[in-house]
């Protein structure tokens, strides 16, 4: 899994590429917790390059979303597609997160 970040307006766009499984999801969690600690408030997570997610990945998205909210920030997810969308829908994550068709649309929601 690769994670890249880019500042857009008052948000940090976090691009996740690869697999979020039990071995890699902790890296995502660690990275986002670091960014929150550095003072980042609003996050758009771009999952366009995400190929696979398991409950460990969902758990790390959940934990970091809670941390972002607790720090007074906002989170929006973008580009959740195919099998990732199916897993989100089955687990109920599709209804509890702001899910957007593009990074631009996610930015306009929380920016």
């Amino acid at each position: 899994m690769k994670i890249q970040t880019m500042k857009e307006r008052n948000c940090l766009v976090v691009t996740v590429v690869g697999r979020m499984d039990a071995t890699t999801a902790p890296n995502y969690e660690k990275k986002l917790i670091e960014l929150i600690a550095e003072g980042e408030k609003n996050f758009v997570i771009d999952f366009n390059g995400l190929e696979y997610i398991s409950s460990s990945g969902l758990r790390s998205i959940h934990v970091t979303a809670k941390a972002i909210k607790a720090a007074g920030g906002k989170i929006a997810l973008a580009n959740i597609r195919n099998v990732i969308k199916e897993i989100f829908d089955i687990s109920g994550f599709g209804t509890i997160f702001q899910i957007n068709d593009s990074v631009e649309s996610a930015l306009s929601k929380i920016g």
Partner: protein
Amino acid sequence: MKVLTHITLPAQLASLERLIGLVSSCASHGGFNQTRVKEIELATEEALVNIIKYAYQDKDGDIEVTCSLDKEGFTITIVDSGIPFNVLSVGDPDISADVSERNIGGLGIFLMKKLMDDIQYRRAGGKNILTLIAWIKPEKPAL
């Protein structure tokens, strides 16, 4: 029933990638499309992670994975010698609860149940024997 692979590795997170990779290539060999292969990988990961985290309670132990194929389905048999645990006895999580409230435990088993066509569990000879089955569905006839 044709056995495609049989492997025994330590019940550690470090074994996960190799085990999932094997199951994935066997599922591809079974003719499933890419989406179905990922669903099968996911169900397998959830079962394996559960064993890695809980079965041996800080003691060392192994996980044995066998993939087999017949004309009706693809079967993954996962065996551990840890504490007795029947995944089928675990209740479903509340997936309607708000993100700030919800308890995410149990989600992995829930996903596994949703994604596989059949799951069987038995305890025999001091071992947990979990069987995950994905049916090979005939292509829908063209209209």
